């Protein structure tokens, strides 16, 4: 899985000298490139879904102190929130589990 600097096409310059502030280096191709891209695309969507969820459910309007069965029942009557929560769940699971996979690859040969 490791892509050595020498085998990388010149279009993807090594970022090693920059350290890790830049995140995972873009893989040269194959499934790993799709995984890299997916982390970024899902990240942009999660920026709205996850940050919005956290602000709405945990910060504004009393946060979790207002959450109980009745609150959830009313909230999930709405197709809008059902879709939001469903998309958030699917994307966060895929993004998070793929992130765990990348981490494991960093430490396991």
């Amino acid at each position, binding site marked *: 899985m*490791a892509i050595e600097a020498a085998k990388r096409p010149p279009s993807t310059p090594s970022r090693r000298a*920059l350290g890790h*502030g830049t995140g995972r280096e873009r893989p040269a191709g194959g499934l790993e490139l799709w995984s890299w891209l997916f982390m970024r695309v899902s990240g942009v969507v999660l920026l709205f879904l996850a940050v919005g969820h956290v602000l709405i459910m945990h910060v504004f309007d009393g946060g979790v102190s207002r959450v109980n069965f009745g609150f959830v029942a009313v909230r999930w009557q709405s197709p809008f929130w059902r879709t939001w929560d469903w998309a958030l769940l699917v994307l966060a699971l895929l993004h998070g589990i793929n992130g765990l996979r990348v981490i494991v690859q960093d430490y396991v040969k």
Partner: protein
Amino acid sequence: MAKRKTDLGTLYKGSPGQWSWIAHRVTGVAIILFLFAHVVDTAVVGWGPDAYNRVVAVYHNWFVRVLELGLVAAVLYHAINGVKIMVFDFWPGSTRYMKQLSIASTGLFLVAMIPITWIMGRDILNLSLGWNL
């Protein structure tokens, strides 16, 4: 991926972005681990009001709400730092301003945490000390 030894040292030390890299990793793992628990507690909705209200009572405990503040901070940090990573990824020239962008994103995170800590911290103090802020 296994042997990512850089000319600057190991995977962990000596690179300018090491702290944000570690923080991004730690917050990402913390969030996904919480998500696993959160799927289970939310699934209890299916057992009706008695069961679900007992479960969410845990989240109303003042100390658990301190942890909740940490979770909110983790999501916010990861989100803002994630944007920073993507800026470097898609506009490679911006890595010249790595230091400035790192300061800007950390600053944005800290500034956003001020009102959030106030809003959530108020509830925590009210619950734990019986105050009326």
